[in-house]
């Protein structure tokens, strides 16, 4: 199998097959990073980010000098693009109907417990929104998208131990925030 570096060289020479192979290889990762920053309510926007990232990469492939690994460069562009889009869509109505998610999450046996569970979910979402972007991203990659700690680190461009420590700190911060909102039993 050809390495990314070899494909990049071929794509430089206007080989569309090489660029298509790079897209095929990394589209899932790019989409995961974008989705982890934008959250489950903005999936179509995450797909737009993935498309825009590959368009940028296609346009700028010549400026890629191979000093860093191709995928690190790609993930960095994705993170930047997703953060930019997030700041634009933050106050927009979510694209996805979150009631579908709520339905999947409401596991309480009675209506009271369901309402309490939904309220807790809303509070938790609000607390997550207040975390630094990289913590939010790490949490969503780990808990929602099911990535391992090593992969979270790879996608965010940080060592595995740092990813582990971000998850640890994010959980402690969330615990504190929920306590402040009156949840004694988180």
């Amino acid at each position, binding site marked *: 199998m050809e390495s990314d570096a070899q494909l990049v060289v071929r794509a430089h020479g206007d080989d569309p097959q090489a660029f*298509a192979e790079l*897209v*095929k290889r990394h*589209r*899932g990762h790019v*989409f995961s990073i974008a*989705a982890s920053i934008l959250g*489950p309510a903005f*999936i179509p926007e*995450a*797909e737009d980010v*993935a*498309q825009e990232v590959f*368009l*940028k990469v*296609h*346009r*700028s492939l010549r*400026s890629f000098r191979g000093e860093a690994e191709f995928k690190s*460069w790609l993930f*960095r*562009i994705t*993170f*930047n*693009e997703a*953060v930019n889009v997030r700041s634009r869509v933050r106050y927009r109505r979510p694209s996805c109907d979150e009631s579908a*998610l709520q339905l*999947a*999450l409401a*596991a309480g046996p009675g209506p009271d417990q369901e309402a309490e569970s939904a309220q*807790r*979910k809303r509070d*938790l*979402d609000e607390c997550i929104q*207040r*975390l*630094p*972007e*990289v*913590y939010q991203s790490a*949490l*969503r990659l780990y*808990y*929602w998208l*099911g990535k391992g700690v090593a992969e979270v680190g790879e996608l965010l*461009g*940080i060592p595995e131990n740092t990813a582990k420590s*971000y998850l*640890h*700190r994010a*959980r*402690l*911060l*969330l*615990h*504190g*925030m*929920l306590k402040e909102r009156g949840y004694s*039993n*988180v």
Partner: protein
Amino acid sequence: MSDMDPREFEIDHLLQRSMAAPVPDLSQDFEQRLADEIQRRSQPIGPRGRIVLIGYGMISLGVSVWVMRDQGLGLPEAAAVIGITLALMGAISLALRSRALSDYPSVHPAGNKNHHRSRD
């Protein structure tokens, strides 16, 4: 993740429950749409588009010079103002583009405005 303290353990359970939403995937036609968009964007401007663009540029330039001269500026000064503005715009757009492609985002949470310091 077995080295969690009880507070983390509670949150870990809560996050597992509350983030158990379906994992999204890119749409099936993502690659096709991307290829179409690349094709569309890489098409050169046709002769008619080029004429319109050049005409627009010339008219804008003419109007700018006319307005500046009307305000009392001489031709060399007006040309300098336009030249400097164009050069500045080019430099800013180049800088923005290279920054978008090279800067690492605020991966360290300390660099983030929303950072909340842990009380632990």
